[in-house]
Every structure is written in C-alpha cells, then in structure tokens.
C-alpha cells in the first residue's frame, strides 16, 4: 500500500493506493470527494477532467496521481470559488449562463483559467484554441467563449 501526499487546493492530503498507476481523477473523486472534476473519456480526448497542476491544465484521467505527488500544486474546480462566492471567471460563466447540462463546464473553466494565467488578455481566437480540447455536446460554446472574454476584460470604469 503506497502512501501519496498531494497538495490539493492549498491543503496537504494523504491517500493510500496499492496501485502506483491510479490516475489523479480517481483519487480526487473517490478518495478526496472532489466530484466537481468529471470523468468523460479516460483518453484525454474531451477535457471534462481538466485540473491545474502548477498553473497548467492537465487531464486528470490519464495523469498518474504519483506524478503530481512531489509537491506540485493541484487545483480543482472546487479550489476556485463557490456558488455563493464564485471567482471572476466563474462569475462570468454565470453571467453568460454558459452551461446547459454543465457536465463539461468544470473542465472548461479550468482550461480557461490556465489560459488566463498565461495570457490575461486573450483574443477570441486564443480562447477558442485554448478550449479546442474541451468538448461540449449541448452547444454552449458561444456562451463559454463570451464568458472567458468577459472574465479577461478589464472591469468597466477602469
């Protein structure tokens, strides 16, 4: 039984697994109860499981948990804001009503967060490219693009 120490949403968390290859997704959802990160394909093709590791978007369905157990900062959707206190990006998604079923949404928020860390004022084309690996079936794309651009725009009056 291997013991892994993960730093998730700013807190140190210990988990046990007898499989060194257990993907981060199953640790987040099953062991840590962080179910905002979703399983979509297990193939790194859809982006529903996207989380941040040291600020970069990764697919937690294929990333072994042990690959991020060396002190890296893991941030999941729960690490941003809450329904009562959404962060600026999430508030922009709410303002644009940028979700239908919402199953893919957390992954999009995380991909967009990674983009905005690197590129605080992205062009629309950059937003589209940054989200190219996040699939949506309900067709919320146009609202998601608007939400990310809204979050990146300087607040009115400044």
């Amino acid at each position, binding site marked *: 039984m291997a013991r892994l120490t993960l730093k998730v949403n700013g*807190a*140190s*968390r*210990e988990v*046990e697994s007898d*499989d060194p290859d*257990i*993907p981060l997704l*199953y*640790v987040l*959802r*099953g*062991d*840590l*109860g*962080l*179910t*905002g*990160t*979703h*399983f*979509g*394909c*297990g*193939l790194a*093709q*859809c982006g529903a499981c996207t989380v941040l590791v040291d600020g970069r978007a990764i697919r937690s369905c294929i990333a072994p948990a042990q690959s991020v157990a060396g002190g890296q900062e893991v941030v999941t959707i*729960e690490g941003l804001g*809450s*329904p*009562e206190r*959404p962060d600026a990006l*999430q508030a922009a*998604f*709410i303002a644009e*009503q*940028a*979700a*239908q*079923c*919402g*199953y*893919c*949404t*957390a992954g999009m928020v995380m991909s967009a967060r990674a983009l905005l860390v690197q590129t605080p004022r992205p062009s629309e*084309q950059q*937003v*589209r*490219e940054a989200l190219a*690996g996040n*699939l*949506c*079936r*309900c*067709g*919320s*794309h*146009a609202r*998601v*693009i608007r939400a990310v651009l809204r979050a990146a725009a300087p607040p009115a009056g400044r």
Partner: protein
Amino acid sequence: MTARVSRRSFLTTGLVAGGVLIVGLGLDPRRRAGAQSIPGADRFLGKSLAPDAVDSMIAVQRDGSVTIFVGRVDLGTGSRIAMRQIVGEELDVPLERIAMIEGDTALTPNQGGTGGSYGVVRGGVQLRRAAATARQALVGMAAQHLGRPAADLDVVDGVVRARDGSGSVTYGELIGDRAFNLKVDPVAPLKPHDRFRFIGRSLPRPDVPEKVTGHHRYLQDLVLPTMLHARVIRPPALGATLVSVDESSIAGLGGARVVRVQRFLAVVADREWDALRAAGAIKTRWSAGPGLPDHAREFDLMRTGRIERDQEVAKRGDLAALSAPPGGTRTLAASYRWPMQTHGSIGPSCGVADVRADRVTVWSASQNVHGLQNTFARMLGVARDRVRVIYMDGAGSYGANGADDAAAEAVLISKAVGRPVRVQWSRQEEHGLDPKGPAQLLDLRASVDKDGEIAAWETQAWLPIATANLPNIPLLSLDAAGIPQTPGRATGLIYQNIDPPYAMPNLSAVVHWVADAPLRTSPLRAPGKIANTFAVESFTDEIAALARMDPLEFRLRRLSNPRGIEVLKRVATRMGWQPRPSPGPVNRAAAVLTGRGLAYVHYKHEETIVAMGMEVAVERATGRIRVTRVVAAQDCGLMINPDCVQAQLEGNILQTISRTLHEEIVYDRDRVTTVDWSSYPILTFPEVPTLEFELIQRLDQPPLGAGEAASTPVPAALSNAVFDATGVRLRTVPFRPDRVKAALSGRP
C-alpha cells in the same frame, strides 16, 4: 488528514435517508434550488400522483413557500427556472420561495418521458393550469376568511389582501401543509399576459452557479453507504454469449470480485479504480457473435431489406406529372442519406440502484423515469409501487442514451450482491452500446413545369420501424441475464416532415418501414426530422436551382402561413440576403469558395417554425467546410424564458452542425468501431460560427417547444450554402473533407 477520514466526512455530508439524497442541509435556498431533489423531500411521500390533481403538482407550506412536482425533468434546458416562472406567475409568489422536485416516481406525476420538446408545452402547461386552479381556490378561501368578495382581493407575493387595506391573509395561513383536494380546473382563469411579471423574462437558471463551481451533484457523483462500484464485462462481439470466466484473473485487485447473473457478467469493488482495473484484467471466453451486416452496404440493405409495411404520410392529387411528364416539364430525382449517430453524451452513462427485499430504489439520468419504474417492476417481478426511480442529472442526453441500460445493470448487480451498486460506463461503452439515432434513406422526385412550378413531388423514405405499444423499455443486458423482455425498438416519430411544407397540387410521401436495423435504435433529438428536413429542404433548393429562381423567393411564393413568412423574411433581412439563383458565380481559381443558403421548417407541420440562413467557406484543396455564420429566426409561440429558448437554439444549431459535418457510427462484423472522440469526432471550439438570432415572442399564444425544431433545418441550410459556394450538391452526411473533396473534383 488521511483519505479515509476525508472520505467518511464526505459521506456524512452526502447522507441518504429514505431514498432521497440530502445535500448540504443548511445551505442558502438559492443553492438548494439547484438540486434535483430537496432536503426533506420524503415528507411528501404518499401525496397525490394523479395527473389531474392539483396536489400532485403543487404544495403550499405553512411558511408560504411552495413546492412544485414536475414529472418532466430539466436536462440543462432551463425548466428549473421556466417552471418556477410559470407557477410564480399564476400564484403570484416570488420565485425564490418555490422549490422544485422533478422526475421522482414517488413524488412527481407521470407526465410522460422528457422529450418531443414538450417540457414546457405539456408539463409546463399542466402546471400552469394547476397553479391557476390553486390560486382560484386560495382567493376563494381568503374571501371567506376576510369576509370580502373575491373580486375585492389582490394577491401580492403570496399574501391575499383586501384592496381597501382592511385585511390580509397569507397562502401559508390558508392552506399551509394541507392538501387542496382539487382537480385541475381546465378553465381556471390564467393571468392575462399584460400582467406578466415573470413569464417572458430571461431570468437566470438556479443550477448554473453550482454547475460552474463544481458543486452540482450529478448522478455520477452519488455515493451511498456500503455502495459498490461496478463495471459490466462486455462481449467482444455484439450478441456473443459468455462461455467461461476465470475468476482468479482478478485476484488481488483491491478485493474486486466477479458478479454473474447467468451470462451477464460484471465486476464490483469498494473503490471505483479497482473495479476498473479488474474489468481490464479479467479473463473470459465468449461464443462468436451472430455478426453484423456490412456497414459499407448500410443504405443498400435498407432499400432491399424486409419491409414491415408502408405508410402514406401525405397524399394530394396524383403523380401523373412524374410518370408521364407533359411537354416542357423537367423531372428531378435525388437520394439523401443520413448515417447512424450516437447521442455522444460527454459523460458516459451511469446508474445507481439499491435493491432490497421490500423496496427498490434507482437513481438515474433517464429521460423516462416512469417508464423505467414499470420496466423494473416487470423485470424484478415486484409491484410497481415497490420501485422508486429518482432522476438525477447526468451529462446531456438528447433522447435516450445509455442511461436506462446502465440503470438496469445496476439493478441486476445490486440484486445479486445485496448492496447498493453504481454502474459507470466507459467512453467505449457509451459510443459502442448506447442506442443510436437510426440511419435514414430518402428518395425524392419532382417535376417542374416551364414556369418553375412544382407539378408533382414524391418522397419515399426507408426508415427502421419502431415497435408499437411496447410494454417495456428495450434494455441492453436483460437477455444475457436471462430476464425476458418483449423484443422491440424505439425510434421516436421519425416519419414526420418527409413531406414539404409548400403549396403544390400533386404530392405523395410514403414511408417504407424497414423491419431490421443493424444496431439498437432510439429517439435522438428531433427524431428522424433532421434527416427528413435535410432531404426535403435540400431538394427544394435543387428545384429552385433548376428553375433558376432565388431560393428565398421560391419558398416565400409557396407559403401562406404568415408566421412562416415572417421567420423567413427576418432571416433574409438579418443576413442581407441578395436575391439570385444558386449557385452563385463560382470562381474556379479561388482557394476558398464562399456561399450562403437557407432552410425552413414547420416542425411536425404544426409546432415551432424556424428559418435558418448560413454562410460557409469551402477550402478547395482540402474539402474542409467552415460554417462562418448562422442566422436563425424562430417562432415557438410563448417563450417563458427567452434566454433559455436561445440556449436551446444554440445547442440545436451547434450539435447539428457537428452531426452534419463530422458524425457517423461505423461498425465491423462484430461491433461498433467508432468508440471514442478521435474515431467519432464532434464540433470543437475553433469551428464554432457566429450565431445570430431573431426570437419572436408571442405572449398571447401557447408555447410550441424549443428543444428540437431548430436542429432540423441545419443540414439543409449547410448543404444549400455549399451548393451556392461550389455548385456541388452534397446529399450524404457527414460532409467530411474527403467526401467533399471528391465531390468538388467531380468524382462519385
């Protein structure tokens, strides 16, 4: 903190009591409002479920808050706000005081499955009548209580007041926690639209804040005490049966074990990853499958296959102008092909079941919880009232994805192991095994006289037949488990809109119902009508092109419905439509060809009306099509929440562009081979066009439905725009680059 501790603390906040998930007691009401169930919902057990009873839909609590019970569920479509708007309007209660319970067979009336764009049209209208009945009753009670005639009373935010200020009484005081014992009054007065406070406003949905913060609880996230995680072991070929299983092959994998119900096989484990590992490691032997037909000959096999019967969908005049065309008439014939497609839900299906000796509880993202209740009662041989099916959100579905099958599998396994069980499908299972939107084949013929009039039109459609009056929902794993079910198939009403909406003297539209289909079928958004409208509206364009007429003018001249004419004109104005025949002047030297097209639909000939214009760019070298702009005008009658209607339009358009450009299920002789997003690609962010809308609000009209109609004109508008750009007509979906490139170079 260790994992065990944190897991336990998670369980204590995700308590399950009496079958209802209790999430976040003590949270503010805004959050609670987003959940599919509400804390303490079980206090309503035993309430009326009669479809015509006010109590089956509405309860007023002592504190004046209102609970509504809705059989048709919110699939991300916005009915969680729309239903509140309807009830808040008729009762005059602030929306934040309205809680909603949806899709729970023990608590909500059976309003039929969620589909057909009928959430608001039927479920919402029933609810509106119930609320109007309740209001009438409450005002009557208040009149007695206050000793004033009802005509002298007003309702403001759930308080009935005498207009002269002499007294008031709250709804809670009048009825709190007691039953109305009233039938819905079909003529209870509805609030006139000039007094609407909530209906017609784009109010935000209550579930969005939870969804964008990862706090929304999906079915896939449900954890029950002692619950086991399960994976079903699938045969390597569809229809193959289990010969043997080597149980030692999964020894030592976190305590995973084999569950076998006759020839149905699964593995279970306490931890999900261990179940998944075991499913990968297990050694099994299977018989050969019966074999699938040749995919390359899919449409030929439909044409030559056994026909169950023919159905005449429309008939006017005769087809003499086709069989013996008079002088000066030209005839035209074309075949249109639509491939089999998957729902493509982003989250693979899941089902959770707790089968006990005295009761069965199932949590499912099914669009038909009441249908599942019946099916599971038959399947288990128990009384229907012992089975409770509770809807929880899954990933978007659009018809009937694998949710029903996964729920049935959870039931089978839970019964076998005596513990709650969660079945989670893989991506490969969802693409490979969800029941599919069927392939469709349509042959069209027309004759056009020298003035460009349509002298005769014929549609012949080959469509897989649905089984009428099935007592059960056809489910994937029951045969292997040795549980009888009436064999059959669901497809939805896939024959509608095979006939054109335009004036013409002679018309025949016939469906040849094909007895067999290579894979299981199901209704998939706007069942059948996307392919049918693709054929009819593309062929209409072909006729207009033959007559050298502008495609817009050609349609307008043959329409008399003023609401239809209005949507077409609105699209034309918004697009800056230049009247001219298609194709436009094609520059043979250009690397990128551009064009515009449009299509029109009157959904089912009696519901929502949509006109859609598109602009496309076609890369000659690659055959790649880019949709650059979509303009849609829609008249769906009364819009309860225009922004939710627009979101449905966006979804209809983008999902159907995806289906038109990219999507086709392919199978070999054993199974589906397009089982992931690389072999079955869908639309991505860089491809999303500019979307523009003209939504026509009709406050004085009934709602007509928004969930499906706008998907139907998409492929024809796209195909017509490609024709306008290139002079090449695409009649087989998907319009993949290799196919388009071949068409551009004149190859078949």
